[in-house]
């Protein structure tokens, strides 16, 4: 099992979600977050005065997937979320040792 933590542009969330469902991803946890990557925010004007917006709104999607689907999920996310511009987001992958369904104590991939 692998955990995918994906940060994307909020506008791309629907496309990413649909692409993930299309390839068979069954569950995900979504959070609205703020942050910045290499672009370090951008500059905006408010009443003629310049000020820096350094934390941009993003959407974070977390999901734990069986390993055989991970490559396809990464591909689906990158395809759906890519605009080609700086700020498209990132995907982080990490190994997960165990998953437990609280309701009936299913373990491992059964619990996903």
């Amino acid at each position: 099992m692998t955990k995918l933590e994906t940060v994307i542009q909020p506008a791309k969330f629907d496309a990413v979600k649909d692409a993930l469902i299309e390839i068979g991803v069954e569950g995900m946890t979504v959070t609205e977050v703020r942050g910045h990557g290499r672009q370090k925010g951008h500059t905006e004007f408010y009443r003629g005065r310049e000020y820096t917006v350094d934390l941009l709104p993003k959407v974070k999607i977390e999901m734990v997937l069986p390993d055989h689907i991970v490559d396809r999920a990464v591909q689906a996310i990158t395809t759906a979320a890519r605009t080609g511009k700086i700020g498209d987001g990132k995907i982080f992958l990490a190994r997960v040792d165990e998953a437990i369904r609280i309701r009936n104590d299913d373990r491992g991939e059964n619990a996903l």
Partner: protein
Amino acid sequence: MSTGPHPPELPPSKVPIATPVPDLTLRNNYRQESQRIQHDFGAIGSGLASLSSRTRLVDTLALTLWEQHFTEVARGGCSLVALGGFGRSELFPYSDIDLLFLTEDNACGDRIKSAISSMCQTMWDCGLRVSPCVRTLADCGRFDQNNLEFTLSLLDCRFLCGDQPLFERLHARHLPQLIARESDALLQSLSEMTQSRHQRFGNTIFHLEPNLKDGPGGLRDCHVAQWIGMIVALSSGRHDLVSVRQNSAHGEMLDAMEFLCSSRCYLHYRHGRDDNSVTWAAQEELAARGIATGAGAVSPAEWMRIYFRHAKAVHRNSSQLLGQVSRERSSLYRSFQHWRSRVSNSEFSVVDGRVYFQQAADAREAAAVLRLFTFMAHHGVALSPEAERRLNDAHLRLAETLPQDQYLWQQLREILTLPHAANALRAMHSLNLLTRAVPEFETIDVLVLRDLYHRYTVDEHTFMAIEVLHGLKDEKYPSLQPFAQLVSELEHPELLFLALLLHDTGKGLEGADHVHGSLQLAASAVERMQLSEEDAATVCFLVANHLEISSTLRRRDIYDPTTIRELADKIGAPERLKLLTLLTLADIKAVNPEALTPWKAENLWRLYTRTAGYFDRSADVEGSDAKVSREVVEKVMELLPTQRSEVLKFLEGLPQRYLPSHSPEQVAQHFAMAGSLAAEPVQLGLRPNSGQHELTVVTGDHPGLFRTLAGILYAWGMDITKATAFSNRSGVVVDTFYFKDRFRTLELNPPECERFQRFVREILMREASLDRLLESRLKADHKPVKLSVQTHLRYDDECSSRSTLLEIVTQDRPGLLHTISATLTTEECSIEVALIDTEGPVAHDVFYITCDGHKLTAERMRAIEWALTAELADTLPSTW
């Protein structure tokens, strides 16, 4: 999913919660039965049988759970109804199970809430994907524009258990009333929904890895056809309209349904979920197991051929039905069609954009039928279902009487040169009349080339190619506009179209070289049609040489005078050059939507003008190139009047092809860059160029420069299409790389251009290391190979006066150019020109190389061949 109330329980740690016993038995029984059905499918391979067994199994499960969870009280005024695929008794192994809890009123719905959630939860735990809905009878009788799917799924409703009279009221009264009332809106929404679904698949059945359910020509289209039939039958007065059409399509559609069902069933078992895409690997398995073929194992290409036959039939039938109903109902379309009907004449009438025979008996006369196709090619109208039926009825007679000789050619030449020729040819082909008139075409009927590059079947590719040429006059892309002019200059366009019609017929014959087969078939066709000797020779010439220009583009440096001379000698006359250039353009563009890049089109045009220029001057290209070079030098002098001697010094020692292949401005820029080398030892120029980017590097001689640059571009995710390298006597190197920016990084992010150039400079100055970046790019691009390609190396020592040509055909893979150029550098060779082309999984790379400024010795060639073969075998990506 909603959860029902559960007694609170505290499980001891590490011990699984005890699930209620009945559920466990139910789950096990269900699993065992499912396995048995899967096993039966594996043994017999009948999709339809397996769907109905599975429906029965889920029926039983639902009934048992109904008994368990619904008390007597709850059952009153409530019935359980199967919808959608479950309702049709076509339950695929991993399809959703649509359940409707139909209730008398809202109060009843509230009463059964908890029973529903515990029933559904048990079904979920069995591994079934249930989607339950609770509706009152009144709800079901209302049409919600935003939930068309629900009304459509009601069309397939089936009673499972509970209050039967309640269900009957829905089935016999409310549903027919709803359909009769809302049929227009329903058909309209259904047609829009289908259109947008088709749009997702590019409105074509031709995909390398098609989707059996949602793709055009897939199962969903069969359902759409069924629904239209039901809606039209249920709505008053329109009963006769579609039923005729439905009956004639029945056999064909049933066969297709059976094929699609068995294949989809296999895909579900194979993927372990509701995934209906026939992937490359799945195609091989389906073919090897002979799923749905009716004839045991076949080759994957043959399996796909069967698939496309069925998909074509489904797509044709369902689009006709949809077109018919949406036209009936759109007043705008009607007024437009009314205008169009003015094209009717004494033989044919046009109604709603469809053509009818004025005299029914004409459908039996070959001459009238050929005139019908000419009419279609002229006006771009489609066959009416009635005309199609008449032609089908008269097929035997037509097949015998259709001319194949001079008379056919008289009609065919007219059809071919009319603007909607492809349209008429497709109609002719779907009625099996094209293969009667031109039997040579039979070999490529729905023929599949399974190479991940040719997206269309060979017959469709042929029609597309004809369509491309006719479409040129309305072309928007600037790179294609000059070719439109060329079409209008043709003396005998019909010969070009005939050659296009026949150019790939050899692909259906045994043997590796299809050109030879096509030529034989073309020769027999033109002889039968009694073309004049001259015309016949032109058609045969075009078919025999239809790959000549593309192979020149791919393998030769078009700025090399020898290339132009050789090509001109082979072609012989300017008119033939025009014909062959257009044929090449149409042939490439009809391979897949991305095959003809602006870059390729521009190169084709450049090759055409250079060769045409050779014919015009009837002089040798070297002479004219020398003239061009002199002109360039003069213009550069004009740009830089005070630096004459410095410019001449810069040009000293640069190869002959440098001047003709660059504009005076470019030369002046290179000169200026060379002049600044003292201040900054790496000079870079980056600019967009016809959809690609051009990177020019001017620097002092630098071992392995080409290899390093290839590596840098690859590490940034760029696809190199061409590269040239020049150096002058004083050791200044001018390397130019043309590349495609795969991710549009440079185009969309202006600051990245600066970072990119800084990076190139740092690597070349050895201030940064390339290896780590290359490694991570390799990891990102690692994809298993679907189709293996044999590696071939070939030298050509004749085609250039200065360098040896090395042609490499191999499996495309990440960083290929970097691998090859690194090996060539190790073998002490310099790369003068590199031409890089990729067709699907196959990479065709051509290098003009020298060693110490001379051609390669035989010994060196062997050493390179040995090293490259080893290196290419080592870096081969894994197969799936």
